[in-house]
């Protein structure tokens, strides 16, 4: 007879527990690192290999590029049609140079359909705003600084070597 009393005690007990509601518009949920939101695109990395367009199950990626003067391919247009994109992340998987990646932006609702056709500028914009643009820039700056130091270190070390070889020149040209 007292099954429902046990049930009542459970619900009463829940009253004291911590509440789970997240005040959504003000407080955004923070997503893990692999979260699959809307795409970001880094044109410099792209080698126009067409892998992403071919692997896409709903074929919503269309791109075109051409070969510039020193035989290197570079991308002209890159459009993703977000009406049919299912955010399955196969494109980022096959991309050899990680030109196309995903950000953690998940609010994709728009008022009109043609806003869902994102072109290369919007995707690059998204990269700058939400992608790992900062880390890439920082990495680039870091790499530049290191290269510079290495060069300087190499010169100083070459200079010392010349000094030492000049010193020991008479002892054979080791």
């Amino acid at each position: 007879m007292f099954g429902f009393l046990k049930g009542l005690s459970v619900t009463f007990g829940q009253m004291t527990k911590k509440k789970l509601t997240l005040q959504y518009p003000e407080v955004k949920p923070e997503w893990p690192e692999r979260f699959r939101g809307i795409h970001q695109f880094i044109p410099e990395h792209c080698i126009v290999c067409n892998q992403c367009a071919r692997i896409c199950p709903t074929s919503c990626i269309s791109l075109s590029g051409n070969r510039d003067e020193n035989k290197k391919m570079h991308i002209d247009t890159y459009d993703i049609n977000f009406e049919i994109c299912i955010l399955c992340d196969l494109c980022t998987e096959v991309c050899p140079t990680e030109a196309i990646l995903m950000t953690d932006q998940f609010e994709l609702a728009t008022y009109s359909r043609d806003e869902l056709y994102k072109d290369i500028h919007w995707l690059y914009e998204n990269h700058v705003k939400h992608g790992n643009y900062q880390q890439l820039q920082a990495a680039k700056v870091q790499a530049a600084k290191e290269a510079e130091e290495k060069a300087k270190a190499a010169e100083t070390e070459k200079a010392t070597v010349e000094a030492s070889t000049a010193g020991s020149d008479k002892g054979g040209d080791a």
Partner: protein
Amino acid sequence: MFSWQTQPLTGLNFLGMVIGAVIVLMVVLVVVMYTIYFERKVIGWMQNRIGPNRVGPFGLLQSAADVFKLLLKEDIVPANADRLMFMIAPIIAFVPSFMVLAVIPYTAAHVFTAGLNVGVLYYIALSSISIVGIVLGGWASNNKYSLVGGLRSAAQMISYEIPLGLSILGVIMLSGSLNLNTIVAHQATDRFGWYIIPQIIGFVVFVIAAIAELNRTPFDLPEAESELVAGYFTEYTGFRFAFYMLSEYVYVFAIASLGTTLFLGGWEGPFLPSWLWFALKTSLFIFFLFWVRATMPRIRIDQLMSFAWKVLIPVALFNILLTGALSLIL
């Protein structure tokens, strides 16, 4: 003590009575709005969520916003519905729920309470008029779901009126009068204390029958969302829908205050002022109704009927027998 019967019926006195009635109406409307808010908060807490907190500070204006929204909403009358009946039904359901409150002794000075000698009978009689409103609403909106919902609620409320009435008989036998004021007075002086103690069986039957009377879970067959898509008021929109909702919550307040008056000693209590005691006990009763709503699943229609006739009524009759025998011996 101030009592309206002793006053001559002059224009001024009549005006006083009308203003008194309007005040009670306003108080009860505010109380009902905050009962709705209280319910959504309590059930929210029980389900690990916050409940309304957007409209106004801590969501206090939420139910006011709801009522206001219902006022503004378009009032649709379905095409081939029975227009006149469709409009009258909510009124028939709504008006008795307010008339019933005239009899409840809120405070010791009970200025606005009609000291009717047949208070309990008045309450029981009026509360069954609402059934007519519900069945009419179900029939008039010309929709299969509403019709089945209306018939179901009629069957349910009628079969639960009887145990409700019988469970109150025990209290009347102890207090000797139907007048709610004297019942509260007797409870103060009774040697066993409040009637909940001697009448514990009657109290349990009263609570179960009260929940069924209000069409609340676990007896909310008429507006079983998952089966009949909101039962008899499926077709109602706008303020007519608000009539039904408000009448349901006014009845929650009315039954809770009746239960407090009959079993928990009404406004009777040691230190605190009388109206505070009444408010505390009533909100305890209301909290129990919401607590049950958050926990229990729904009873099936045929189980509902057999439970009323085969379990509640015999238990209530046994309680009356027991009370009679014991009051002879003791």
